[in-house]
Each structure stands twice: as C-alpha cells, then as structure tokens.
C-alpha cells in the first residue's frame, strides 16, 4: 500500500507554478491569520500507548503549571494586543476548555473569533485510537465547541500534532471543511477526491512560537526577525498570486514577559503593510474553495 497517498491526501503534486492564481479580496497579497492554541493540560492524564503526556513522573507540576500560565496570564496579554491591532483570527481549541475554563474561550467567542477543533485535551493524543474511536473523540470535540459558541466547527488541527493513518478520513467523515495539519505549501491546497472537498490551510510550523522559542530555543529577537523575513518574502510572492501567513501561538510561551513584546513586533509589522487581508482560517478556506478552485475548474487563468 502506498501510505503516503493514503495518509497525506493533498491533490497530486503540481508542476512548478501551475497552482491556480489566487486573487484575495481587495487585491491583498497576503492572507494573515492568527491561531492561538487555547489548551487544557491535565495534571494526571490517562496513559497513551505511544507517547507519555509529561516527561516527568506525575505530578509534573513544572510543566503542567507552565501551560496553566497561558490561561491565567499569557492569553490576556495576547488579547490586549489583538484588540490593539484589530486582529480577529481562529482559535485552536481543546474543547474541554469550554467546560473547564469558559471565561478564556468566551473572551474569544465574544470578539467573534472562529473556534476550530484541536481535540479535547492536549494531554490526550489521537495515537492508538481505532477509526471509530477517533471519529467519536473528534465528534465530541466539535459538539462541545458548537454547544459553546453556537456555530458549526469548520476545521481541525490535531492535538499535540498526533495522528493515525485514519485521521484525514475521519475529518472528511465529520464533514469538516479544512485541515491545518498539512505543511506542504504557503498557499491553500485542495485535498484529493474522496475527502469531501476539504482544503488544507497553511499553519506554518516554523513560525510557531513553541517550535521557534522552545523546540529550537531561538531568542525572541531572532524569532521576530524570522517572522519578518517570512512575511516579507510571502508579501513579495503575493504580488504574483496571493499567499497565506498563518501564525500559530501558545500563550504560555508568547505571553511570558520575555516574549510578549515579540508579538507586538509581529503584529505591528503586519499592520505596517497595506495589502494584507487579516482574516480567519475558515474565511481563507471558504474563499479558496469558492473563488479560486471553482474558477480554476471552470478554466480560468493559471500562472
């Protein structure tokens, strides 16, 4: 079996520069969207057969309490900046947050942020679930979020980036419209036939604050420069065909005093450019499916 085809289902790799031309609204060159990961980490999570939730014996208060910093302190600093720079994006949400800490989720709902599913708990991974179990977990996650915000969940990012071979089929079975787990391109991509018309929306892993500041250990100043370099390049490429800059954030990282100023630098940089569409993942997915793919299929120009 060709697992690559089965597990990673984007549309077959195109020849260079044959992707459909993207014309974002108002001739924007870049669609910019922010994805705060709003997560609940359990002190005593259930065991997972593939990966332990915490590196230390339980209770791992060092690491659990750090995650809690995000919900208690970091996220509120981020919200101050989102308000100041008029940013409304999409929340990557562990649905259990709706029950445990509704005040945090409510702050985003009340500002009209999109809420998409990021599983139930960030300490409960998809690894090892059967396709039916996986369907049930994601169905419950979506249902809990829909109950909280009164809107249909449109997209998904896997909790702690954990997957099974069945995961993308499960998303299609749930009727989700977009996935964030495919890191192929800096533009949206259609998934191949059989995945319910889902599209992939860029969630750029090297811009992820956790990836840059923790996994790679970058200093804040260098992370800010990485963002600017990334954004500036895609802004230039966006003159030819629209691009996407997706910014994954974790308030327990970016909300710490030594990094919060970096977020202000990032948002100020974005706002200093004129041709930017500040939007959500769902808006990008919808616009792409409706205005780009359908026109491409009906014979519009290719770059």
């Amino acid at each position: 079996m060709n697992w690559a085809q089965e597990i990673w289902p984007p549309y077959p790799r195109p020849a260079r520069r044959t992707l459909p031309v993207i014309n974002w609204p108002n001739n924007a060159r870049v669609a910019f969207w922010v994805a705060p990961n709003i997560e609940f980490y359990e002190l005593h999570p259930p065991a997972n057969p593939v990966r332990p939730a915490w590196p230390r014996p339980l209770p791992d208060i060092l690491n659990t309490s750090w995650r809690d910093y995000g919900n208690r302190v970091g996220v509120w600093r981020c919200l101050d900046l989102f308000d100041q720079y008029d940013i409304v994006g999409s929340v990557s949400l562990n649905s259990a947050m709706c029950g445990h800490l509704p005040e945090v989720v409510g702050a985003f709902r009340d500002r009209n942020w999109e809420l998409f599913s990021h599983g139930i708990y960030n300490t409960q991974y998809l690894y090892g679930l059967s396709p039916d179990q996986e369907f049930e977990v994601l169905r419950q996650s979506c249902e809990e979020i829909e109950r909280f915000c009164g809107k249909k969940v449109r997209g998904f990012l896997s909790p702690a980036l954990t997957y099974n071979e069945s995961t993308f089929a499960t998303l299609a079975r749930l009727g989700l419209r977009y996935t964030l787990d495919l890191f192929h391109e800096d533009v949206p991509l259609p998934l191949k036939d059989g995945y319910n018309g889902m599209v992939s929306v860029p969630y750029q892993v090297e811009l992820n604050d956790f990836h840059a500041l923790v996994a790679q250990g970058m200093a804040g100043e260098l992370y800010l420069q990485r963002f600017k370099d990334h954004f500036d390049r895609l802004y230039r490429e966006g003159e030819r065909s629209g691009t996407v800059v997706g910014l994954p954030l974790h308030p327990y990282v970016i909300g710490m005093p030594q990094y919060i100023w970096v977020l202000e630098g990032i948002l100020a940089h974005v706002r200093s450019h004129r041709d930017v569409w500040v939007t959500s993942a769902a808006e990008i997915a919808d616009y792409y499916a409706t205005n780009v793919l359908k026109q491409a299929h009906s014979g519009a120009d290719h770059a």
Partner: protein
Amino acid sequence: MPEAAMNHPRGLDHDRFPFRTIREQTNFQLPASGRVALNLIVVLQRFHIDAKPAFPFPGMIDRPYPDVGNATQREVGLRSGFWRICELIDDLNIPTTFVVERDALPLLKGEDILREARHEIVAGGQHAALLHTSAMTEDGERRIIRECRDALTDALSRPVIGWRSPSCAQSSSTLDFLADEGFVYCGDFNNDDRPYALTTRGVNRLIAMPMNHFSSDLHGIVTMKQPTQLYYDAVKKGTRWILGRKNQAPVILPLVIHPWISGVPHRIDHLRNLLKEMLAFDGLTTSNSRELAECFKPAV
C-alpha cells in the same frame, strides 16, 4: 476513550488552587505604588558528583561518572560566580531572594550576605539532584524538608518560611508536608505573576510565589542555548512592555538566576547592565519574596 464531552467540570482538574486570571482583582498590592516588582532570585545549588536523579532535569551533571568537569563547573556557583553576583547585589543595592540547598551550606560558611535582613532565604531542598517524587516515602520526604529548614535556620540564625524544590519537582504530598512544617510560601509553580493561595489538607495554608523556571537563565541560556545578550535583552524588553501597559494589575517579575550560569566572567557584566537599566524604569520596584508574600492577603 475520553469521558463524554459536555461533562467536563468547571475549573482545574485538581483542588490545590482555583483558576484565576491576571484580569481578576486579588488582594495583592505592591509597596510604593510600584507596578512591577523585580524579585531577583539566586539559586545556590550543590551538585554531588555521585548523585543519581530520579529523572533527568535541566542543568544536571549528565556525563559518565566521575564527571569532574561538569561537577566543578557547577561549583562555580558557590565560589567565584557567587562572589561576582554578591558584588553586583551590593553595588546596586538589590534586595535578593537566595534559594539555598542544604548541602550547599558547608561551602557557604562565612558568607555573611546570607544573614543580611534585607535579603530572604528560601529552603531549596537537600541538593540539586535530590528530586522530590511520589516514589519517596512520607517519612523520607518529611525528613528532607525539615532537615533543610533546620540546617538553614541554624547556620544563618534566621527563620526560613519559603520553599522551592530542586528543579521545582514535587511529590503528590509535598505541599501538605510544607504546610505541616510551618512554611508560609512555595515557589515551585510556574503559572502566575502574582501570589495565590494553595490548599493543603482542605484549607489555605500556603502561598504560591512566582519564581518562574521558564524565565530563568537556566532555561533561557543553558536549556534553550540563547545568546546571553539576547536573553537578557528579552527580559528587559518584556519588563518595559509590561510597565507600558498602564491598565495592568501589579505583577512580580521573578528573575531566577544561577551563579554558575550568570556569574561567569563573560556573562556577569551583561547581567549588571540589565539590572542597572531595569532599576531606572519608572514603576519598577525591587523586593525579596518574603516582602512580596506579605503584600498578599489570601482569603482564609
């Protein structure tokens, strides 16, 4: 399989403390109407060359026994690194919190700075690699806590009311034992910039004080391998950012440093410059953790 959705209980999944956001009022005010209190926290660790930790921890001696190189390099923190930090503290007149491990005491004889009333002494456990875990016996863990407190009290002739575990590691019962032994506050939690009450045996008997490992030199410079200048610059910019947000609640900025990291010749002047610049910030005060714990009045 997870529990059914919509049945997730409100609040956190333990009863040690309730959830509270930085936007909520709390009974914590800084002296002299300061908005950010710098708490300089100096951790004095003892690394025994033959000690085996229960699990890997940041800064541990990690090469095969006998790891003479790492062991002696860590001991810089009780000698020249410590002396440079002390000189800096005296020059800039910064009230400081010293976290002292019991087994560091024999190497700190005659260090009178630890007896000065303007500084605070926090019990740091027995030694760097003796990590508290739930595999410890109750008697064993109680004895470590009690003996550390008593040794510091005797050696420095002063009461010790604060605790910070080696590498912030606790068993399921550490908080209960700390409260039983009469400790007032604990610096093991990394989840807030303000004090809050911890529940032990059903009542609020301890205060959680911010001593965040993840903004320490150990995390930033050793674990994350950030260049010294960039790490300290980030702390400075973050402090300035918080001071610039006028509507924010007063917070503590814990700066946790380890003299074997920040006290070495190529870093000490960066630390000096950072502290000098921060001390000039409008709205920034300096306090040790005892004074800051006294600024918090938890509900009983």
